[in-house]
């Protein structure tokens, strides 16, 4: 592997380097010997799909977790960070994907949270306010230090996070998906801030799924795949296609669309669906969307974070309500039915976050599996143990869960098997349409291909499958049709003979002006 030529200019000098960093969680290798460099006053972007190891690497560089092996070199000296506070004291700050501000407190108090300026008479609010004002001036943001954080727009909150990092004189700033929640104008502001920071000699590590956007701001690109660093190059030598090729890899077989049968009638038809954003933000997360799925068809919905995939699927399943539009299931309008009624009719959802929405952690594997089909084993007032066990055994067999009989606590299963439980639970209701929101999230490649194989088999028997993904490699697996969503709308539709590059181009954010 060719490392980039060492830049010996003062601006571009390597300030932080990772050498052969490996991290294992039990038997899972999240990182397998990664080399990585951060250059002074420049932006280094980490590219990679979900689960490639980006976040783990960032957590190691910011001291949140310790590497299993390998070393971190800061200013030429090997260091080891005891904690994130330790890393922060040495000038490395991380801005997490989920903001870590207290919304009920004002900007000043957030910036000085945990390191208040004390005098003998208590906190020196005047001095804190003065420093906050100075920081905001530096960032050219007109934010009053006494504004409550919850009253700020998301983009401004991001600025406050950055100000907090700067206020402790961070030399190296790690930004994990900072633009995922920002509007185009806010992204512009952020990029301007990043350029200013660069000019001041601050080094930036940037992570983003918005490839085009990241290409505008970065000086170096590093690509991770399955815990390995697959490529490393300077901005001037690369383009979008290079990143995608290195991110996704070539030989990545997740199966092919099932063939050899004709699709049935239209099973699900969504007409002009609009879903307003949560909290009265005033725009639609799903914007006038229409979609038709036939029995036996597999449809993939691709889109970036915030494209509206989850909201659309949850609306179809009945968790969210639409502001307008119709949802027809086998020709009948189900928009007014409850979730339970939709499940009974044969329309089910496998939610995105299995811990939060999929599993009941206090119950066993078996009881989780039978939860959605309780009606099938209730005789009169009582549940029938035998009928229930039959459903559980059948589910375990059909979705290949590695467990014995279903009596084990759900937490004892691996992520992949937990996901199969959530899918098995909904398949046990004998649905006609199954919606899966990111069914491959946080599960390994083996489990992933098993899940897809399973869905393809079911599609052959007439099940209509709709799954969403943010990994482009998964679009070109079992789906007959790929729909790309962007800002709540369908931006493109492809058949299974398309290319990854085309799909990614259709999903990307509009190019932000410099």
């Amino acid at each position, binding site marked *: 592997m060719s490392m980039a030529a060492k830049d010996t200019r003062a601006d571009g000098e390597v300030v932080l380097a990772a050498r052969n960093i490996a991290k294992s*969680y039990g038997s899972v290798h999240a990182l397998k010997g990664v080399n990585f460099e951060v250059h002074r006053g420049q932006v280094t972007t980490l590219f990679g799909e979900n689960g490639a190891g980006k976040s783990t690497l960032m957590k190691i560089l910011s001291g949140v977790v310790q590497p299993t092996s390998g070393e971190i070199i800061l200013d030429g000296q090997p260091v080891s960070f005891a904690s994130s506070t330790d890393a922060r004291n040495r000038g490395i700050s991380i801005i997490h994907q989920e903001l870590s501000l207290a919304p009920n407190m004002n900007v000043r108090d957030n910036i000085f949270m945990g390191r208040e300026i004390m005098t003998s008479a208590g906190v020196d609010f005047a001095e804190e306010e003065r420093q906050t004002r100075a920081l905001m001036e530096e960032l050219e943001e007109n934010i009053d230090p006494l504004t409550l954080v919850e009253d700020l727009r998301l983009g401004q909150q991001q600025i406050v996070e950055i100000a907090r990092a700067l206020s402790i004189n961070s030399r190296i700033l790690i930004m994990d998906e900072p633009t995922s929640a920002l509007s185009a104008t806010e992204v512009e502001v952020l990029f301007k801030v990043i350029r200013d920071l660069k000019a001041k000699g601050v080094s930036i590590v940037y992570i983003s799924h918005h490839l085009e956007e990241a290409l505008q701001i970065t000086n170096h690109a590093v690509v991770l795949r399955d815990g390995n660093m697959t490529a490393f190059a300077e901005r001037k030598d690369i383009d979008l296609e290079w990143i995608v090729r290195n991110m996704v890899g070539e030989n990545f077989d997740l199966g092919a669309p099932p063939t050899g049968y004709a699709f049935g009638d239209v099973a699900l038809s969504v007409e002009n669906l609009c879903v307003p954003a949560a909290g009265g933000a005033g725009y639609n997360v799903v914007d006038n969307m229409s979609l038709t799925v036939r029995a036996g068809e597999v449809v993939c919905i691709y889109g970036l974070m915030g494209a509206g995939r989850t909201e659309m699927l949850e609306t179809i399943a009945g968790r969210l309500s639409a502001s307008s539009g119709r949802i027809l299931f086998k020709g009948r309008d189900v928009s007014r039915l409850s979730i339970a009624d939709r499940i009974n009719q044969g329309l089910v959802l496998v939610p995105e976050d299995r811990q939060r929405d999929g599993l009941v952690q206090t119950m066993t594997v078996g009881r989780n599996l039978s939860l959605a089909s309780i009606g099938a084993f209730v005789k009169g007032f009582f549940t029938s143990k035998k009928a229930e066990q039959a459903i559980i055994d059948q589910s375990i067999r059909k979705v290949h869960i590695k467990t014995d009989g279903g009596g084990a606590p759900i937490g004892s299963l691996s992520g992949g098997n937990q996901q199969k439980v959530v899918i098995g639970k909904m398949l046990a209701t004998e649905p006609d349409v199954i919606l899966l929101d990111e069914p491959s999230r946080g599960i390994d490649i083996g489990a992933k291909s098993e899940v897809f194989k399973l869905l393809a088999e079911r599609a052959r028997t007439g099940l209509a499958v709709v799954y969403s993904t943010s990994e482009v490699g998964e679009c070109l697996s079992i789906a007959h049709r790929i729909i790309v969503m962007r800002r709540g709308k369908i931006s493109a539709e492809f058949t299974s003979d398309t290319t990854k590059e085309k799909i990614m181009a259709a999903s990307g954010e509009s190019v932000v002006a410099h």
Partner: protein
Amino acid sequence: MSVTNTTEKTTSPGSAKRKFDLVNLILEGRAFFALIVIIAVFSFLSPHYFTLANFLIMASHVAIYGLLAIGMLLVILNGGIDLSVGSTLGLCGVVAGYFMKGATLNYFGVILYPPVWAVVVITLTLGAFIGAVNGVLIAYLKVPAFVATLGVLYCARGFALLMTNGLTFNNLSGDPALGNTGFDWLGFNRLFNVPIGVLVLATLAILCGIMLSKSAFGRWLYASGGNERAADLSGVPVKRVKITVYVLSGICAAIAGLVLSSQLTSAGPTAGTTYELTAIAAVVIGGAALTGGRGTIGGTMLGAFVIGFLSDGLVIIGVSSYWQTVFTGAVIVLAVLLNSIQYGSRGAKKS
């Protein structure tokens, strides 16, 4: 993304596991062991403790807390809390007393003396209604359970005081001439030498146990208490479940109110004050998690007996009632401490 999820948990074989099982056994059965220790200690300290007659008397005291605790268990399994049960008990007792003493209908100029069964039905309906108010406030109007039931606690107590003007209805045994005798049967009488109140508790506990373990509703309750979002997406009618548990809790409180006023053959507006806390304590000592989803009727009954037998034991050996309060408090804290050790160690094992 969490990489830890993909780690297969390995069960540690051999002696380490056996040792852990022993610790677990003591933790799981702690209410049971505590009860045995309490009985043993007090039997040693007082010759009057370990007698059938005393156990039956103590059990009839436990019956009141136990009835409240059954309803409380359902609510806590759902991840909620019902602070209103003590007041509901008081109000239901007062309403029962009011009807036993004759309901004056000014408009018709008559005094109604409903038969006892009708009084029971009216009282239970009132309990169910109060529970329904709690349930609707919590499930549909999204008032936090703690606040909603706290408000209802005050309202119910206030109505009880208003109805009686702060006084107590005495001598509720009824009049043969009016055909409304038999009210004292519930609390005062015995069947096969066992106080009726204890039998009522046993019957309800068994019914509730069957409901929890065998019925679809029981499964819905455990699921929605363990993870309401997941239960909702699996088609569990979570709102209906929520309202139902508060209604059942209200009915349990009404039954407790009937049993108590029957035991005393009087109904005071301040009856049952702070009983909700005792009921919560019984449920917690019984191993239920306040976060919902974990708990059993058996554990709750043991919890109720631990509290009842402990406080009666302290009375019998002549410890001041002020010390009883201290002891009860210590037992509750100890129980919650063990809870967090039990569920905490499970969490640690997972990661």
